[in-house]
């Protein structure tokens, strides 16, 4: 029996497609089905179809909205911080100087560590009794701060940790964008005696805008799914001031074992992420179209 070109193509593709179907598509469809059921994965009882009840209950629960507010606040602060710092540092690094390669590599290191390890280190460093941060603050004559357990500061402890990890990503993306700006444009601007601001506004920014929007899109999507450091650093506390939506989904799924409800909340989060991504992509297309 001879296998034709098309048959051979499908034969080679089949293992990958089957694997993807098994580990990506099947769980997605299965969990979507469960989101319409009352189901506890630890019980030996089949899922009970309840229609939109899980969605209705979640969307009308003030507890869930409070967690969306926490997540929104966290995403806004963290992504804005990473963007401002990363962009600024990239502009500083985008010039020739001795040791540039080494310094750029050192800046990128935080991104290479495990977030759980970083979270644990930050927990120790931010401890008000024996942490290095408060020790330095007290040496400077400033008051000690209970970073992870004071409701006023707990969210900032997460933001600081996330900014430390992910600012290098912004640096990397901005540097990549800056390398695409043709040098002759700056030379022409120099001849026209354009100021630093004019060069930045009319040459640099339009060239790197698409890559910056892409970087913001990646970071926003990732920050919304933020879980590791909350789990390690604050455990959602004090009270519930740092309980983000993904952390709450984890609790509903694996502590309370309301499997159906946790699937529904995960899908609500996916819809939010898709919505936000669409806004970014809309702007990305607009910038590209100019």
């Amino acid at each position, binding site marked *: 029996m001879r296998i034709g070109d098309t048959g051979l193509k499908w034969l080679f593709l089949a293992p990958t497609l089957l694997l993807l179907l098994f580990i990506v598509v099947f769980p997605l469809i299965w969990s979507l089905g469960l989101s319409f059921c009352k189901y*506890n*994965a*630890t*019980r*030996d009882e089949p899922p009970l179809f309840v229609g939109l009840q899980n969605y209705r209950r979640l969307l009308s629960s003030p507890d869930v909205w409070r967690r969306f507010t926490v997540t929104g606040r966290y995403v806004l602060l963290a992504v804005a911080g990473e963007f401002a710092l990363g962009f600024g540092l990239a502009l500083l690094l985008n010039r020739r100087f001795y040791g540039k390669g080494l310094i750029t590599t050192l800046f990128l290191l935080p991104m290479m560590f495990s977030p759980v390890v970083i979270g644990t280190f930050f927990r120790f460093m931010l*401890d*008000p*009794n*024996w942490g290095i941060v408060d020790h330095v603050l007290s040496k400077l004559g400033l008051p*000690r701060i*209970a*970073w*992870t*357990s*004071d*409701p006023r500061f707990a969210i900032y402890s997460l933001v600081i940790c996330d900014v430390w990890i992910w600012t290098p990503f912004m640096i990397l993306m901005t540097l990549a964008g800056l390398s695409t700006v043709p040098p002759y444009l700056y030379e022409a601007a120099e001849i026209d005696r354009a100021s630093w601001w004019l060069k930045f506004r009319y040459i640099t920014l339009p060239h790197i805008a698409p890559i910056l929007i892409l970087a913001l899109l990646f970071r926003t999507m990732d920050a919304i799914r933020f879980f590791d450091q909350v789990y390690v650093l*604050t*455990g*959602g*506390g*004090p*009270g*519930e001031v740092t309980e983000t939506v993904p952390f709450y989904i984890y*609790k509903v799924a*694996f*502590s*309370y*074992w309301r499997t159906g409800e946790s699937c529904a909340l995960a899908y609500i989060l996916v819809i939010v992420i898709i919505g936000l991504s669409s806004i970014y992509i809309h702007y990305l297309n607009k910038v590209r179209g100019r």
Partner: protein
Amino acid sequence: MRRALTALIALCILIPFPAAPAEEKVTLTIMWADWEPAHLLLKLAEEFTKETGIEVRGNFVPWPQYHDKMFVEFASRKTSFDICLPDSQWIGEAVEGGHLLELTDWIKEKVDLNNYPEMVIKSYSEYPDGSGRYYGVPGLLDFVLFAYRKDLFEDPKEKEEFKKRYGYELKVPETWEQLRDIAEFFTRPEQNLYGIAMWQAPLATAGLVDEFLGLFWSKGGRLWSGYEDKKVVGYLNDEAGYEAAKLWVELYKFHPPGAANYSVDEVLTAMQQGLVAMAAIYAAFYPALTDPKKSRYADKIGFFMSPAAVDPSGKKHHYVQLGGQGMSISAYTPHKEEALKFLEWWIREETQWKFAEAGQITPDKRVVYDDRFLKLAPINEVVRKSLPLLRDFWEIPEYNEMAEYMSRKLNQACLGQITPKEAMDDIARRHEEILRAAGYYGR
């Protein structure tokens, strides 16, 4: 080509297949929290291996991840362990899911239940309470006790100053009110010394509720109307409940800064570093405080039992919060016979003595009420006194959400976000919601 193929086939025929093992060696895996008693159990199990030839290994998980790891494995209906030691309050969740092997007939045949206090059997072995159905044997006895700095409590200057201020002798507190006074007395931020450290984290396991309930019960508090009808509003948030929450929130003022997230490690560290005068711990953690390699104040630490209290009507109550674990068998193990042999070895008086001699706590009355036991560990006098006062909380599958909510709301009260009364009212309301959603009120 043909020659090469023939040579290959000949080679395959000539290479002898390895002989099948005469009998496969069984290795039992025990899942427990990653702590001192687990490592000790594994060491003692070497004797079990010598006796039976059955190997034993451990699968130990840090406390904060322990519950989730165990139940994720249960949910997959296949476990990497044969024997497990679920925390006492998880028994309902595990039994209702069908994850533990029922041992009722085996226990009736092999175990003398009179060797254990009734509360221990109810919490570690039986589910539902009073049903006569058993799913484990008592494993490790654990409960809340307090550690204190003897050097501070016995200092004549401190004693004199305390008496002048509070009008009575400074000694280990017998009531929660005395504990409050002592905590206040030793709170001296300028010396980097604080009165007390207790678990305050908003967690279901190793969180606030684990240590709050000793105070709550001793103040006359009730979690619900009873196991049968489970009404919460008006019971949990009665006068006694409010009083208990008020005192707990007051005690928070005497904690070190940042104590709102304190769990096992933070409280132990605070005591090891001499940051606090007193700390509430679960008894099995005591070696971390008396080991000079871990604790700067190892030789200056003493222990006292969880105090009594007076309820709003003036009646005195004394309860101690039970912790600890039973030893159960996974319903999914292929080595049921071997696991039962291990349980039989574990409950022997001789094994329990060895466990106690190594410094850990057994619930076996034959050991605890023998005077030799008192000399085996610095906490053993407290163990004996606490044994009749033990009380445990909900064991129904919904316990995790109920405990977590209670911890979170009281944590908010400690931080001044809500009042203790608001916290208790909210907890009562939410507990009824959880129980209603689980279908208890329609049954």
